[in-house]
């Protein structure tokens, strides 16, 4: 039996609860992604990168990566759960930019539409913005290697 002061008892429990509230587990993200994937059989995921913490302190974020959702919204809580999914669109012609774009965007919208997740970024296998150059691996090396074009979707969910 450990004896402590009432003050320390309170401090220990309150601070522990704060840490526990800022913690999360990837289970919910798995369930969410699985449910959405069921609606998009042509999409195949290559990687599932889940993380939690202060968005600016997210470890191993590649240089040049865009800021996460919570970082972009000042005044919100510090802790956020982020999810970066990379995958391919199968069963679609690789030069069918419009079809691939539509499928990736519908997939990304479905991911960001429930369970408190917000869509942070969608990176298509090619650049369709006016600022960019429309290039990519469509009909290029990937065609030779037989790989479907890759996309990346980033989601975030704020923790209490």
């Amino acid at each position, binding site marked *: 039996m*450990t*004896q*402590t002061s009432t003050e320390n008892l*309170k401090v220990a429990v309150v601070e*522990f609860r704060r840490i526990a509230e800022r913690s999360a587990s990837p*289970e919910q993200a798995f369930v969410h992604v699985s449910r959405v994937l069921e609606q998009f059989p042509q999409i195949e995921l*290559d990687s599932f990168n*889940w993380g939690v913490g202060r968005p600016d302190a997210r470890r191993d974020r590649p240089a040049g990566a865009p800021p996460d959702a919570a970082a972009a919204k000042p005044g919100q809580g510090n802790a956020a759960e982020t999810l970066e999914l990379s995958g391919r669109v199968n069963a679609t012609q690789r030069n069918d930019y419009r079809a691939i774009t539509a499928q990736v965007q519908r997939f990304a919208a479905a991911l960001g539409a429930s369970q408190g997740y917000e869509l942070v970024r969608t990176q298509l296998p090619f650049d369709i913005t006016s600022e960019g150059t429309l290039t990519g691996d469509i009909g290029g090396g990937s065609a030779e290697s037989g790989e479907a074009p890759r996309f990346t979707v980033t989601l975030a969910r704020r923790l209490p």
Partner: protein
Amino acid sequence: MTLTREELRKLLLPGLAALALVAAGAGLVWGAQQSVRSAQLRLAAAEADRRESTERLTRIAEEEREVKEKLDVYQQLKQLNILGEEHRLEWADAITRIRTQRELLDLRYRVDRQKLLISAPGKPANVDFYASTMKVELALLHEEDLLRFLADLRASGNAYYSVKQCLITRTGQAATGASIVPRLRADCEIDLITIIDRAAKR
């Protein structure tokens, strides 16, 4: 009607008595009013005291309930060995046991040196929260393997397990008929959090 001197003399005494009685009556009324006022003031003060005592009692009861509830959590933290020094050997035992029980194909881990997470000011001493980051590499047949591993780890106690990051990728290894080949690989970072209450006495 005119009173004679004789009659006035006879009435003098009763008249004085009547005046005295009226004065006494007025005095009694005034005294009674003062008494009522004073009693009302005492009543108001007593009611205020009672209200204050009730509020204090409610506060004490609330505080007692809060302390009792926190004491339960504190005892649980103690029982799970989250409160106290790190148990690194128990962590290693738990991971080995989970790997065997879950028949995980490959599991590698590294626990970094402990670092101070938060030092919360308490009385008479601080409550320090420490974290040791564990990097785990797991070979998975299915993503459920990772979730089971994390659940088993949490259930094993000896720390609060706060998962910071998990990257799951395909191994790209083709399945062969002869042996079981992992299809996925998980790289996770988990903070193993322990608490040192500097005021705790054994």
